[in-house]
């Protein structure tokens, strides 16, 4: 139900027994950290940290600084994003904050307001 992009599929392939899913039934305030994947479809304020994959869904609103191994954003993120690997901003995404990522993909229609810093060693120029 949540698997759409290649980045997501790669992370959901493995053992995801400790996935955290924040749906529209709840709001979270504080420091949310997890050893597993995090899927946010609701509202989170504070900070979000995972050593694995993060998905911010279409209807999600994240007002937090975010750290993850990889991320796909379709909703709203207000805060800085530090992603070790690949970050994908889908066409419905809105990010207000600075981004640091090794690999970045921004779809047409996505909104991004902030600075962007990429690791020279792993970044690639696609023509």
């Amino acid at each position, binding site marked *: *139900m949540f698997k759409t992009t290649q980045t997501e599929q790669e992370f959901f392939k493995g053992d995801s*027994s*400790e*996935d*955290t*899913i*924040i*749906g*529209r*039934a*709840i*709001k*979270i*305030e*504080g*420091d*949310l950290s997890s050893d*597993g994947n995090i899927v946010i*479809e*609701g*509202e989170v304020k*504070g900070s979000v940290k995972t050593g694995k994959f993060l998905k911010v869904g279409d209807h999600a609103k994240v007002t937090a600084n975010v750290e993850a191994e990889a991320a796909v954003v379709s909703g709203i993120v207000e805060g800085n994003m530090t992603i070790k690997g690949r970050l994908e901003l889908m066409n419905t995404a809105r990010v207000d904050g600075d981004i640091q990522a090794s690999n970045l993909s921004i779809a047409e229609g996505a909104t991004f307001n902030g600075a962007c810093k990429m690791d020279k060693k792993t970044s690639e120029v696609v023509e």
Partner: protein
Amino acid sequence: MYYYLYDTFLNDKRFDRTIDKIKEKLLELDINGKHIRLSLLKRIEEIIDDETKRGIKTLVIVGNDSSFLKVIDPVVRNGLTLGFIPVGQNNHIAPLLGIGENDEACEAIAARKLVEVDIGDANGQFFFSNVKMSKSVSRLLIEHGNFKIMPTNNCKEVCIYNFYYPMKKDKDILPELDKIDAQDKKLDLVAKSQSQGRAGILKIFSGKREIRADTFVERDEFMVKSYEYLPLVLDNYRVIKTPAKIKIADTKLKLIVGKNRSKLLK
């Protein structure tokens, strides 16, 4: 010695033949013991406490899911080993324990394959499956460590699971529910919301809006608070009130299981 406890609904005559067959099979397998039928006059906790003082070590509950869940608290408090012989309808737990009906259940008791499973502790009361909150859930505040979980107006129910067993009425459940492991020393919070439903004329014919699980948070303990006293239902029968500290108990439940048990019970 084994102590067999028959739930009150088995006093109905239509179960007489089944009960007789079970007793014959237990005799044949040489695991006979004391057989007691529960009545409405004496509390199940008192019976188990009294019999523990007399020296029983293994209690076998005969009945359905409700019967099984009702004995959990006194069984864990008294450090007994628990067996289960499912009879009648509403038996969703037994198949997950690998326990069949009648003769198969008796054979599982005789084989005595034991597993130790986690037990939930809500304000000092033990539960096996879940703590359910379905009244005024938007007024609840659930804390864990550095973050707070606040159910929204869209939230219809919050459940904290130790052991999950699917009921027939459960629809559109998260696949994550099947991963709830009663041996991982963790509890799983699941919040359920009401779907938006169908629009226009379809809404009239589609009947009730569906309740579906959309949140899954796994942690070792949760603190449930509210500004007023709100009820929390333990294992679908016992009610406690907020505030409540819900955690994995220090002690474990020794459970007799069958060969074809859930993969999650090792």
